[in-house]
C-alpha cells in the first residue's frame, strides 16, 4: 500500500510540468435511454496528455459518458444524446462529422478483452488496413510491431505473431486490444474498466502501460477501483446517479474532496 501511495504522489506531481490543453469538452451532456435519463447536465473537460479517471458506484453513468466521447452510444437504438461534446473545439455530434473518422481519432478499449478471432498480427493490422494507413506490407508490419511495442506486448509475442490472438492470456489479450487501438494512431484512448477482468499482476502491467501512454495520448479511464484511479490518473471525476458530483485533480479528490458524497465513496462508506 505504501508503495502505491508513493507512486501516486509521484505521478500526480508530474501534472504541472506541461501547460494543460483542453482536448475534449463536454457541456450540458444529457443522455436518455428511452424514457430513462442516464446523465444529467454533465460538464466535463478532458485535458491533453493526461489520464482522466471516471469513478462512481455502478449505474452512475460513467460508462455512458465515456461511450458518448466516441459516439459508441449511436449503436444503441433507444439512446439519445443532447448537449455538446467537442474534440479540438469541434462538435462531434455535428452532422458533418463522420463517426467513422471520429472513432479513428478517439479509440476505445473495452471492459472484457475482445480480440478478433484472427492472428495477433491481423488483430493489430485490422485498423491500419481499413483506414489505409500503410502503403505496403513493410509499412504495415512496422505499424504492427511499433504498436505491439508501445503496448508492451511485443517481446512476449514476437515469435508467434501469426498465432490466434484468442490464445493469449487475459492480460495479454487486453494489451493486444490496446495495441490494436494504438495502431490506428488515435489522439484519445477511452478505456472502459480495462482491468476489471484481469488478475492483479496483469492489472499492474496495464496500469504501467497507461502511465507510459500518457506521453503521447490523452486517456480517459472508467474504473471501479479507487486505488487504480489514484495510481494512474491525474484528474478524477466522480459520478453519482447520473450527475457529475465533483471533478478535480486526483490528489485533491483523494485527500481533500469538496463533496461529502465523494468523501463517502472513496472511503468506502457506500458504492
Amino acid at each position, binding site marked *: 500500500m505504501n508503495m502505491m501511495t508513493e507512486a501516486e504522489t509521484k505521478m500526480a506531481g508530474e501534472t504541472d510540468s506541461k501547460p494543460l490543453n483542453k482536448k475534449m469538452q463536454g457541456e450540458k451532456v444529457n443522455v436518455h435511454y428511452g424514457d430513462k435519463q442516464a446523465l444529467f447536465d454533465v460538464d466535463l473537460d478532458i485535458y491533453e496528455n493526461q489520464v482522466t479517471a471516471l469513478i462512481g458506484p455502478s449505474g452512475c453513468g460513467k460508462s455512458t459518458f465515456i461511450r458518448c466521447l*466516441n459516439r459508441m452510444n449511436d449503436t444503441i*437504438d433507444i439512446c439519445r444524446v443532447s448537449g455538446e461534446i467537442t474534440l479540438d473545439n469541434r462538435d462531434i455530434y455535428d452532422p458533418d462529422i463522420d463517426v*467513422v473518422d471520429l472513432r479513428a481519432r478517439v479509440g476505445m478499449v*473495452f471492459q472484457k478483452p*475482445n480480440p478478433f478471432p484472427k492472428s495477433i498480427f491481423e488483430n493489430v493490422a485490422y485498423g491500419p488496413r481499413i483506414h489505409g494507413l500503410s502503403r505496403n506490407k513493410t509499412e504495415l508490419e512496422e505499424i504492427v510491431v511499433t504498436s505491439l511495442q508501445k503496448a508492451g506486448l511485443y517481446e512476449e509475442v514476437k515469435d508467434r505473431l501469426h498465432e490466434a490472438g484468442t490464445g493469449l492470456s487475459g492480460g495479454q489479450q487486453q494489451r493486444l486490444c490496446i495495441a490494436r487501438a494504438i495502431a490506428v494512431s488515435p489522439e484519445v484512448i477511452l478505456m472502459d474498466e480495462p482491468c476489471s477482468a484481469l488478475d492483479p499482476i496483469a492489472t499492474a502491467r496495464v496500469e504501467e502501460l497507461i502511465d507510459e501512454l500518457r506521453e503521447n495520448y490523452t486517456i480517459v479511464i472508467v474504473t471501479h477501483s479507487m486505488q487504480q484511479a489514484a495510481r494512474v490518473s491525474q484528474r478524477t471525476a466522480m459520478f453519482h446517479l447520473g450527475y457529475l458530483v465533483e471533478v478535480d485533480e486526483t490528489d485533491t479528490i483523494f485527500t481533500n474532496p469538496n463533496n461529502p458524497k465523494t468523501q463517502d465513496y472513496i472511503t468506502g462508506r457506500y458504492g
Partner: protein
Amino acid sequence: MIFYLVLALAILFFVAYYFGSTRANAMAGGDHSKLHSRPSYHGGYLALVVTVPALAVLIFWGLFSGTILDRMVTSEFATQLADKSIPEIEAILRDARAIAFGGIVGFRDELKEAAAIRYEELSATATWIVVALVAALCALGLYFGVRSMSLRMRARHFVERFAISLLIACSAVAILTTIGIVFSLIFETARFFQKVPFFDFLFGLHWSPQSAFEAAGDQASDKDLGLVFGAVPLFAGTLLITAIAIFVAAPIGLMAAIYLSDYAGPKFRSIAKPVLETLAGIPTVVYGFFAALTVAPAIRGWGEGIGLSVSSESALAAGLVMGIMIIPFVSSLSDDVINSVPQSLREGSAGLGATKSETIRKVVLPAALPGIVSALLLAISRAVGETMIVVMAAGLAANLTINPLEAVTTVTVQIVTLLVGDQEFDSAKTLAAFALGLVLFCITLALNVIALKVVQKYREQYD
C-alpha cells in the same frame, strides 16, 4: 381381455401408490425426517413392484400368444399336416383362426373345424392362465413389497433406477430402429450386387432399369443387367440440381441472414424471421407443382425467346425452386450463427473506426464462417434428399448431361419410380432402389458428419 387387464393394472398402480405412500407416512408417524425416502417414493416403489411384473407378462403374451397357439395347434395336428407345404399349413391355420375368432374364411373342411375348436379351447385356457398369473404376480408383489417397506428402505433409489432404465429403453428404440433400417438396406443391397456387379453399378454411364424389366422375360443375362444399372447419370443429375439449388440459396439466404441479424430493427426481425421459417414448412409437393406449372414453362419461354432449346422439364427449373425451398435453412441457421458472434467483437471493430459493412465483412462473417458452412452443408443434404420437386419439374429421363436446360433425374426420384407399382420384391429392379438408397444415405451421412465437425470446431473458439 387384455384391455381390461391393462385397465385393472392401471387402477391397481394408483391404488398401490396411494397405499404405499400412506403406509410410509404412518410408519414415520408424520415425521418425514425418519424416512430414508419421501413417502411418494415409497408409493412409487409399491406401485412398480405390484404392477410391472404383471405388465411384463401381459406384454409378452400380447406379443407371442399368436405364435404359441399356432405351434401348439400344429403339433397336435402334426399327422394331418405332415404332407402339406408351409404356405398350405399357414393357410389352414389362418382359416381355422378365422372360424374360431371370427373373420373371413376361405373354405371350411373337417380339419379346419377341428383345429378351430382346439384354438378356442387353448385360447380360453391360456387366457385364464394369464389372468391367474397376473393376479398372482400382483398379489406376490404386494406381499413382498409391503413386507420390505421400512423406514430406512431406499425407495427413491429404486424408483429412480427404474426411471433411468425406462429412459434407456426409449433411447434404445430410436437407435435400434436406425440400425435396423441401415442393416436392411445393407442386406438388400448385397443381394442386388449379387445380380449386378458393384463397379458396373457405381460407374456405369447408362441407367434404364425399365428395359431390364422388359428384357427379364427374354432371359437377359447378368452382363446386360450390369449395363442398364449404371448409376452415374443419377448422381450427376442429383449433383447438378443440388448445385443449382445451392447457387440460388447460398447468396440469397446468407444476405438475408446478414440483413436480419445486423441491419433489421427488432420489430421487423420478429416478423420476418418466422415468416421466412414458414417457407420451410410449405410441403415440397406444393413447391413441386409451382416448379412444374409456373417456373418450368417460364424458363422454357425465356429460353426460346433467346433461341435456346429448352425441354419442358429442366434441371434449371427444379434447381431454382429447390433453391428457394432451402433458403430458409440457410438464412435461419446463418442468422443464428451470425447473432451468436459476440457483440463485443462488433463494438471492438466499431471502436477502431470500422464502418458497419467493414465490421460485418472482416470480423463478423469470418468469425461466423464455420457455422455458415455447416448451415450450407445441412441445406445441401436436404437438397440431395429432396424428391417431389424433381419428380414434377425435372422429369424422369436419366440423361448424363451438365446442361441445366435438359431434363435430368435424381437418385431419390429413381428410387420412387423403381418401387412404385406391382413388382416382385427380389427383382434386380427393386433391389436397385435399396442400393441407391444406401449410397444416398452414405452421402448425406458424410455431409452431416462434416457439418457436425465444423460446428464443433467453431464452438471451441468461444468457449
